[in-house]
């Protein structure tokens, strides 16, 4: 779990701060060598849309995938922005985690809107209590649980759509660069709930309405390989080592209760 102290740099000598900051920048570069800046991706989205326009428009299947992704990102972005606005909900020492994640979701929304252009749908009307089932913005525990559910679902959702983008490799690549960021978000949110960053066999404290988020993640046979046979690693860690996809229908069933229109 990250120990977060935004004022840690305040009491240090300037040259020490410089060293830390420059090291941080170099670490950041490792994390984001190429597609680091959001501007790059948004510009890319526009270029990608233009390229498709010249060849008679974006294939319907690609539009469908991007619109699906946009809906999920709008849901996530709205969730974090509402959570951050709710006074006293998010503890000060982890606020910055959700500001970071929320900021990323905003960038994903901007990217997808740019890629879709006129095809981009309106933001859906949302109800994060799912009709009163969750006290989402009244309880930090509930907020965290839903953050985990949305991130784990988001990651599995992108993964599920990837095969549909094979004929549009640039879009596929961009979707994957979002997919792995959703996985990073999921891991850190899980760690705030004192869970492992990866998904184990059991999901303690997950109510029935959230359980479908983790359906079908207990496989020990992958693509015809029985991993219990070829690996001496224990079953729990075998199932953790792969994250399986969710179909669009499965994702919409999970997200449905939170979407009013």
């Amino acid at each position, binding site marked *: 779990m990250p120990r977060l102290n935004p004022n840690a740099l305040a009491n240090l000598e300037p040259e020490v701060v410089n060293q830390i900051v420059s090291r941080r920048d170099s670490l950041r570069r490792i994390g984001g060598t190429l597609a680091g800046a959001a501007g790059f991706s948004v510009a890319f989205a526009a270029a990608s849309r233009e390229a498709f326009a010249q060849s008679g428009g974006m294939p319907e299947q690609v539009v469908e995938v991007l619109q699906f992704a946009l809906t999920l990102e709008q849901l996530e972005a709205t969730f974090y922005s509402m959570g951050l606005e709710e006074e006293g909900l998010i503890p000060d020492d982890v606020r910055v985690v959700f500001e970071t994640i929320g900021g990323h979701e905003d960038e994903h929304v901007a990217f997808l809107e740019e890629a879709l252009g006129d095809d981009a749908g309106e933001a859906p009307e949302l109800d994060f209590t799912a009709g009163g089932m969750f006290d989402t913005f009244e309880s930090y525990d509930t907020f965290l649980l839903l953050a985990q559910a949305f991130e784990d679902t988001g990651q599995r959702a992108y993964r599920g759509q990837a095969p549909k983008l094979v004929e549009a490799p640039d879009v596929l690549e961009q979707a994957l660069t979002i997919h792995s960021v959703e996985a990073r978000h999921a891991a850190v949110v899980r760690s705030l709930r004192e869970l492992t960053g990866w998904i184990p066999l059991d999901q303690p404290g997950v109510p029935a309405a959230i359980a479908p988020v983790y359906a079908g993640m207990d496989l020990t046979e*992958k693509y015809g390989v029985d991993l219990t046979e070829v690996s001496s690693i224990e079953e729990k860690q075998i199932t953790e080592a792969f994250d399986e996809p969710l179909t669009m229908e499965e994702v919409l069933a999970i997200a449905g209760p939170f979407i009013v229109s």
Partner: protein
Amino acid sequence: MSFHTAPLGRRRFLALSGASAAGLVIAGCGDDEEPAQTTPAEEPPPEPMADVTLDFATTAGVLNYAYALEQLEAAFYAQVNKEFEANGETFQAQLRDIGAHEQVHVDFLAAVLADDAIPALEPNFETVDFSDRESVLQTAFTFENLGVGAYNGAARFLARLASEGDELAPTALMAAGDIVAVEARHASIIGAQLEPEQDDMFAPNAFDPAMPPAEVVAAAQPFITQRIAVTNADPQGG
């Protein structure tokens, strides 16, 4: 590598791998492109000869690329889990989990590749201080992010192969997708540990990199004894 040691390198490769399995070609035949040289013209640096060349025009080549990186990661965590004492049982357990996941990835890829697999790689971790938290975590963070960038960047090669009708490529693409998410989860947990006074190292950017194979291999090469080369690895190439 000097002229008269070249045949030894070649012999060593042949001994390691058998023959030219699919996805592998024997390098050192003169058509490898080297980066632009900046040293004086009168003394050109010797051309390093590759022990293993990964061919991105084949699914086996792309999978061997993954296999090489996973071998590197698995070997790294095996040594971490032998020699490094983490601060706290939770993080120690996480490092054991991560190491186990990398080994599962190795075992999976070895099973998928079967006779097409590249030989076992010999890691070189002499620059890593396994008793030092900073050194271990920075190396781990580098490897995990490299893994994420590598898988993300490899997808377009598998997509191209799939479009061309290659039967294995769609499955390889899906497996890579299942694995990269777990690498990203690792990167997040390591990133959060790495610099606790910083807040966003778990996900430094809204978009992860999709790295070209040549860049990934250049970054990984210092940690691998064998020389790795890539071919047909231009992301924009046809």
